[in-house]
Each structure stands twice: as structure tokens, then as C-alpha cells.
């Protein structure tokens, strides 16, 4: 059933309205793993993009952070909120404009991909904190971008979604398995391709690629595991569900690797929803941004 005539490159090249990430944000992400990256340098890089700077400052001053006084420049924001928070705000600010678009191929209405992606980010970071994984902010960024491939694959699914759901259910397949069978690629592969085109580091592209198949990696990656669990939490709590719904697998060995138990997971689910509700305060700023 796979259409082997289409290549990943063709899928991406023939998709109009592809998402884009500003150069300044890409540079900040590229430096995520760099020990040399300093708060001042991050602020300097982001400040080169005026529109992005305005949006980041608007988020930094949102009710979510509850700062006692207004921050008016990026250097100050980095000092008050920390470099990792500002880097995450940069990703939020530059993903939001294209993530709010509806994706007909996945039956996602306006803001639904955003709601889903942001929830994965919040869930993945929370799981990373619970499992004491260092750099939990990377789990946030990677979680936010995990489903970026859907924005490119959507148009290819527009006339196939209903049939694909029926096919996947009948054959006992997850939705990503069905995507691979029917289109030759799943949204995780397309997402990895897109992120590589943006020159994102492997630490991020690897998460996008394997977030539905975390045990297929030769060497397990704790951030991939955190995003997999964050995605699971997002699906069961129903944030931004499209036609693919909950038609995915949950690899429970991720919990073992993260040393989390099922009891932990109920508590994490509760904390996840609470954290998500708090973030609504930031959403208010995004809607006017």
C-alpha cells in the first residue's frame, strides 16, 4: 500500500505554507548543547530579530511569570527568568504563528496543533523534572516540535484521513504505522527531515524522529523517553486531538528507563493538567502577540 514514488524531499518541496523558524531562533537552538553559550550571548543573538524580541518580552511579562516589575530588554529577561526559560520562550514565540493554523489532513482545527504540541512540551518537561533528567528545557523544546512533521504531511492526508483511520483500526496498526504503510513515511520522519533542513542539532532531530518509537534507538535517549511520555499524557488528557486521536502506542519501557512507576504517572497526570492550566496565562499573551 506504500507509495514508494514519493520521497521525503518531494513531500516537503511540494508542500506550500511550510512552517519556518527565524534564523535567530535556529542559532539559539543550535547552541542548546554548547557549554560556551552564555546568557549574554543568547540575548545578543535573539535581539537581532526585533519582531521575535517583542514577542519574547510580551511572554516574559505575561501573568504566568508574575514578575514584580516589567522587563524591557532581553538581557534583563535572561537575568530575571534564566537563559533556559528565555530560550523556550523564543521557541514558543516563533512556533505559535504557524502552529495555530488548521491542518485539514489530521482534522485539526485552528489552534489544535498548537494546543497538542504545547501540551507535549509541558508534559515532557514535567516528566524530565520528575525523573531528574538534566536539561529538562530541552525536553520542552523537543516536545514542542515533536509533531512538526504533521504540518507538512497534512496536505497529503487530506483525502485519505477517514480511510486511514479505518485501515489502521482494521489492521491493528498505530496511526504512524499506517502513515508509513500508505505514504511511505510517518510524520516523525517528515518532521526530522524538516528540522534537519533548519539545521537543528541532533539532540532535537532525534527526538522528533523517534518520539513514537523510543525503543528503536540503538542507545536510548532520556529526552526521547520524556517526550514519548509527554505525548501519552497529552493524548489521554485530550489536548488538541485530531483524527489520529489516541491511535498510537505507549512504550512502557520508557517508564522503566526513567525509573517512574504507574503510581507516579497518575500523580504526574494531575500535575501535568495543573501546569497546563497555569500556562493558560501565557496563552492570553500569545493571542494578542
Amino acid at each position, binding site marked *: 500500500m506504500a507509495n514508494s514514488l514519493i520521497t521525503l524531499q518531494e513531500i516537503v518541496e511540494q508542500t506550500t505554507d511550510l512552517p519556518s523558524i527565524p534564523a535567530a531562533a535556529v542559532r539559539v537552538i543550535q547552541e542548546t548543547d554548547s557549554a560556551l553559550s552564555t546568557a549574554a550571548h543568547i540575548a545578543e543573538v535573539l535581539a537581532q530579530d526585533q519582531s521575535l524580541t517583542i514577542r519574547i518580552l510580551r511572554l516574559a511579562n505575561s501573568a504566568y511569570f508574575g514578575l514584580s516589575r516589567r522587563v524591557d530588554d532581553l538581557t534583563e529577561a535572561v537575568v530575571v527568568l534564566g537563559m533556559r526559560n528565555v530560550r523556550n520562550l523564543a521557541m514558543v514565540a516563533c512556533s505559535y504563528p504557524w502552529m495555530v493554523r488548521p491542518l485539514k489532513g489530521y482534522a485539526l482545527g485552528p489552534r489544535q496543533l498548537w494546543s497538542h504540541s504545547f501540551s507535549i512540551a509541558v508534559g515532557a518537561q514535567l516528566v524530565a523534572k520528575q525523573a531528574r533528567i538534566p536539561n529538562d528545557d530541552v525536553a520542552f523544546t523537543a516536545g514542542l516540535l515533536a509533531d512538526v512533521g504533521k504540518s507538512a504531511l497534512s496536505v497529503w492526508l487530506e483525502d485519505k484521513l477517514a480511510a486511514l483511520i479505518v485501515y489502521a483500526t482494521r489492521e491493528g496498526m498505530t496511526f504512524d504505522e499506517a502513515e508509513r504503510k500508505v505514504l511511505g513515511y510517518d510524520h516523525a520522519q517528515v518532521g526530522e527531515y524538516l528540522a534537519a533542513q533548519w539545521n537543528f542539532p541532533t539532540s532535537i532531530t532525534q527526538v522528533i524522529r523517534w518520539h513514537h518509537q523510543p525503543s528503536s534507538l540503538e542507545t536510548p535517549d532520556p529526552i526521547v523517553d520524556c517526550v514519548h511520555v509527554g505525548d501519552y499524557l497529552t493524548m489521554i488528557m485530550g489536548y488538541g*486531538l485530531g483524527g489520529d486521536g489516541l491511535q498510537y502506542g505507549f512504550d512502557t519501557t520508557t517508564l522503566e528507563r526513567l525509573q517512574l512507576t*504507574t503510581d507516579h504517572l497518575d500523580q504526574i497526570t494531575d500535575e501535568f493538567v495543573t501546569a497546563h492550566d497555569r500556562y493558560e496565562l501565557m496563552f492570553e499573551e500569545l493571542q494578542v502577540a
Partner: protein
Amino acid sequence: MAITTASSTQFLVGMSEIHVAKGPAIFTCLGLGSCIGLAALDVTTDVAGMIHIMLPEAFPDKPVDKLGKFADTGIKEWLRLLERAGAQTSRMKIAYAGGAQVFKFGANADSRLDVGARNATAVAEHLKRLGLRALAIDVGGSSGRTVTLDTVTGLMRVRTVAAGEKELVNLRK
């Protein structure tokens, strides 16, 4: 969240919320995953209510911040609010939907991971314990559901992307 129009008050029943109304109303639980949307209507007094349940039971070692979050604390509170508004349990028509789950778990997965099934079981048990019976139930599967109750027509509807909108039950009949 409630919006009042000329004909009905519309309630968007968010996670862990309970809404009860007397008179024309439309209740909606949007995009249920493993959560359950449970609704009741007393046609005699025209009182109805919906609860959006998130987890089966409250944590023994943690205070309950929202009663509607858990089946054990929420169903009691939902019933108390319905009765306070004038509904009588003997006349109430009840239905619920939701409780979906991810499609596949790994081999030997702990059954506690199936939050959707645990929610559905908890709702059934708590209703039974209170002497209540649901007229219609639509739980399980791997699709997100949107559940709506229109108290004017009595229709409880369930919408999924794959199956579209279908009538689950008419609580006025």
C-alpha cells in the same frame, strides 16, 4: 464557562468542572481522551448537569483541589449539585461517554496504565453504589470524543472524527 443565548445557556465543561442548570441548556465536554463526560437530566424539574471526570480516584496523600477531577469525589458532588437545583435521583436519566485509551501498550504493561478503562469502571461502580443506572454508555476505543447534551431536545450526542456525530441517547424519553 457559560454563555447565555436567547434560547439556551451553553456550558463548556472543562476538565474537572461540574455544571448544573435549570431550564434550557447545552452542555459540552470538548475533546475527551481518557476522561469521561457524565450527564443527567430530570425532565420533571428541567434540571440537568454534566461533569468532566479526569481520574478514577483521589490521591490518599494529597488534598483534593477540585472535587470534579476524580470519579469518587466528583460523582457525589455532581449529584449534590443536581439535587440542590431540584433534581431527584429517582427521576434522573443518565448517560456517559469517553474513556478512550492509546491504541497499543507494550507487552506485560500494567493494567493501571489504561486510565480510560479505569475511569469507565470507576464511573460505573460509583453510579451503582448510589443506586443509579446509565441509560447509554459510549466508552473505550482510541478516538477523541466531543459530548453534548441539549436539555431542550434531551439529545446526548457524541462526535468523533472517524464516525462523525451520532445520537447516543435521548434523555427525555
